[in-house]
């Protein structure tokens, strides 16, 4: 607990690097949780051995890590499609003629397609959750999830599982790439175009939804554009639509008149709109702030409300982003190397999102995966249903994850992962795989074989690993639990101790 025992030092606002000798167990653990989904004791020790620079470079260069990509080709691209003109005509005719047989047949057919599409969406959710659990490139998935929350799009409105999957692959492809590419791509993304109603936006009737969110939520933040920018931006985006699974530019719907957006004028199209955004001062700062909130500290989304020392650091991140022309890798690299990132006030103070909790627990405690469908249901109950963020604002995160109901779900999903005991509302399943805690304790056994017979040492080892801290009262309770069962350290006793530790309020933090 070196980091916590230290006298409080001031939060450094520079982007200076952490000294190599300051990168120990707690810092490696912190890095694995924040830039990934936690790590096993062995992985933490590996990073300590590698040192700071190599550890960060491993994380920010996912493509260097071989990964036999879980294939997405098994998903169908054509379950759901818009009705063809002929089908629409047939439907209209049947309506007029009160041909109930045909109407019923058409509706049934449509319902069947919608049902298969929802089923496929559930499969895609499972696939992504499984990938996050398995990946050796954790930051790639963390950034994919970050972009999903940033460019929030929900299947509930899009109602096309394949478009949601394609968007997810797009986010992964650019996870640590260039932010400009993400913006140019998102105005062509069928799921987003459907979600923000741009597919029917025409010169005569422009829809402002995408133009507004493109600036307010995706790039500049409130207060950095005018209502006029929205109106003119919406005109620039007219005709950006899709057919089937592909983007199309519908020339006849596009407004070719002169427009003025964020100080740029001319016959602007969507790409010009994005260029104007990227040239706007507020853009790099807004994205730096969003990254800071995701990785470092849950500061307010309004830049002016951020404490001054943290604002300075965010400005330096933004400057790095501009120097690299919106390349994200150098920004994340500097962030993860910085002394600021490892400052005690930034450690053990982030509330785990439901995905971090579930994926991080499986990965760090090495529990069985058990049933992905049940894990997905638990994510839903905890407020983070993948592919279904609550609104275009994405997930609020931070304390909004926590309330009395979600806290029980959080505790109960841990009991499920550790023991197979099912959480809320399920019939008992046949799943009975035992949790094997031996690999978790291997590092302790290696370092100090005698400690394996000492409840005090085992408890301290588990607390430091799971919580990053060792609250005195909890230590006593856990030691009492073990000695109450005779003091022998068995697999079942460790499972019981972990059930208690993971129910603790502090386990929700990383």
């Amino acid at each position, binding site marked *: 607990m070196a980091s916590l025992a230290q006298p409080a030092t001031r939060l450094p606002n520079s982007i200076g690097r952490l000294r190599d000798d300051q990168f120990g167990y707690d810092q490696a653990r912190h890095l694995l949780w924040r830039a990934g989904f936690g790590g096993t004791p062995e992985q933490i020790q590996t990073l300590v051995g590698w040192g700071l620079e190599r550890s960060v470079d491993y994380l920010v260069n996912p493509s260097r890590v071989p990964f036999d990509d879980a294939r997405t080709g098994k998903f169908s691209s054509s379950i759901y499609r818009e009705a063809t003109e002929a089908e629409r005509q047939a439907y209209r005719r049947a309506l007029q003629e*009160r041909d*109930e*047989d045909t*109407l*019923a047949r058409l*509706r049934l057919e449509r319902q069947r397609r919608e049902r298969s599409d929802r089923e496929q969406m559930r499969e895609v959710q499972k696939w992504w959750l499984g990938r996050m659990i398995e990946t050796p490139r954790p930051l790639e998935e963390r950034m994919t999830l970050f972009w999903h929350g940033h460019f929030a799009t929900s299947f*509930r*409105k899009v109602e096309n599982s394949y478009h949601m999957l394609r968007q997810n692959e797009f986010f992964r492809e650019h996870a640590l790439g260039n932010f400009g590419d993400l913006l140019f791509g998102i105005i062509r993304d069928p799921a987003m175009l459907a979600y923000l109603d741009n597919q029917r936006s025409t010169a005569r009737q422009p829809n402002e939804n995408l133009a507004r969110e493109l600036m307010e939520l995706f790039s500049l933040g409130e207060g950095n554009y005018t209502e006029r920018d929205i109106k003119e931006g919406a005109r620039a985006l007219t005709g950006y639509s899709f057919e089937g699974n592909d983007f199309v530019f519908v020339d006849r719907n596009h407004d070719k008149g002169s427009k003025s957006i964020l100080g740029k004028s001319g016959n602007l199209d969507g790409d010009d709109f994005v260029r104007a955004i990227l040239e706007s001062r507020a853009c790099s700062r807004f994205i730096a702030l969003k990254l800071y909130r995701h990785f470092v500290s849950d500061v307010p989304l309004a830049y002016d409300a951020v404490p001054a020392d943290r604002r300075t650091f965010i400005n330096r991140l933004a400057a790095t982003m501009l120097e690299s022309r919106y390349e994200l890798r150098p920004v994340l690299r500097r962030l993860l190397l910085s002394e600021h990132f490892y400052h005690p006030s930034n450690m*053990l*103070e*982030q*509330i785990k999102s439901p995905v971090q909790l579930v994926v991080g627990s499986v990965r760090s405690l090495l529990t069985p995966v058990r049933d992905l469908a049940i894990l997905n249901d638990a994510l*839903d*109950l905890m407020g983070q249903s993948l592919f279904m963020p*609550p609104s*275009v604002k994405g997930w*609020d995160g931070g*304390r*909004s994850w*926590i*309330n*009395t*109901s*979600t*806290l*029980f779900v959080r*505790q*109960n999903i*841990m*009991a499920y992962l*550790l*023991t*197979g*005991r099912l959480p*809320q509302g399920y019939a008992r399943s046949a799943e*009975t795989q*035992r*949790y094997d805690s031996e690999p978790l304790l291997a590092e302790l056994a290696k370092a100090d074989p005698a400690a394996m017979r000492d409840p005090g040492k085992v408890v301290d080892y588990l607390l430091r690993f799971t919580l990053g801290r060792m*609250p*005195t*009262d*909890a230590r006593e*309770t*856990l030691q009492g*639990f073990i000695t109450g*069962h005779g003091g022998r350290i*068995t697999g*079942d*006793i460790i*499972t*019981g101790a972990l*059930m*208690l*530790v993971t*129910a*603790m*309020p*502090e386990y*929700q*933090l990383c």
Partner: protein
Amino acid sequence: MRQFEPSAFTRRQFLWQGLTLASATAAVPAFLQSSALGLPMPVAGASAIPGVPEDHVLVVIQLSGGNDGLNTVVPFGEDAYYRARPGIAIRQEQALALQRQQGVGLHPALGGLKDLYDEGMLTIVQGVGYPNPNRSHFVSMDIWHTADTNATGEGWLGRYFDSQCCGYGKGESGTSDSTNPASQPGIAIGRTAPLAMEGRKTKPVAFETPDLFRWTGQDVHESLLAPYREVTMRTEAAGVAPENNASFLMRTALDAQINSDLIRKAVAQRPLVEYPRTQLGQQLAMIASMIRAGLKTRVYYASHGGFDTHAGQGGAQGSHARLLETYAQALRAFYRDLAAQENHGRVLTMTFSEFGRRVGQNASGGTDHGTAAPVFLAGPMVRAGLANEHPSMKNLDNGDLRYSTDFRTVYAAVLEHWLKADSKAILKGTYRPMRVIRNA
């Protein structure tokens, strides 16, 4: 003691009934020992906040799937009704006639509802809907839940809670003010909380059965419960500042345990009357027990599904009739129970569905997704009777009923006249409250 084997489910014992509250209260600081732990009868009109009637309770019943309004409140005076529904229409002599009303009656399975009507405890708001009706279950339900025809934003009841700053003020759990005990957040019976109750700052409690609103790990072995309560019911952590997230989490964990104990103790009471053995009956029995136990919860949510009657819905008998009967009997028992508790005057119940169904029956003896439908308001505080006109059977919109009542004018009445809240801020617009609550 059994051998400690967390994975050995076959020998698992369920122990929670042996759980005593004494162990809880010992660890609970005085300010959190809500009066509800003693389960007193609430004093009518008593309120910690002047002007806010904390004793007023709203219960929402959601009929999921799209209830067929035309076969619920039957326009038997209209020939067009019988022409459109030759196989499933309710005949005039089958329908339950309503006092002082001509031309409409209730489905024969709604005897329980007719009782409430006769006792002056039921308002039937007719033709409730919204402009440009959406026929998707998801979207239309979200429109009703958000009170926004774009189906976006927080839930309308969530915004109500946010505006009251009851309970979990400032996005955080717990209260530190002993003189002004927080009211409970809304309680929904079901696996997930309905969007309607999701606020920006306030989140509802949701559980299918109260036995699951607790740590299920305790079922693995009895020796886990005591240490679990020790590690989750701590009041402070050494060296952790109160504004830190660790302290926030500890307060919420403590709250969760107290709520869990409270709710489970409340519903362990036997109801004062017999309820039908249906899911909705059991949901309402639990809600009545929580009201009787004096929980400070102002809003409860129950739901009753299966109304998506595309095929073979039947007429006076059949699947739709059974759904209606389940609803009416449960609601009837609920108000008998509340009357026996002398709490009926405190509880307004609103029933809605995401849409009605099309006027004409389809080829499968059912009905497809439609538009406007009735909303029911129950309780002795309502202006009993029919409100607004039955939607016209002649002036249809492409085979669908035209709505005559915007659902937000009903919400506005519930907010303004019952919960005494500012409906403009909550509904993000001005909706003239319907005159459906007496003495409003």
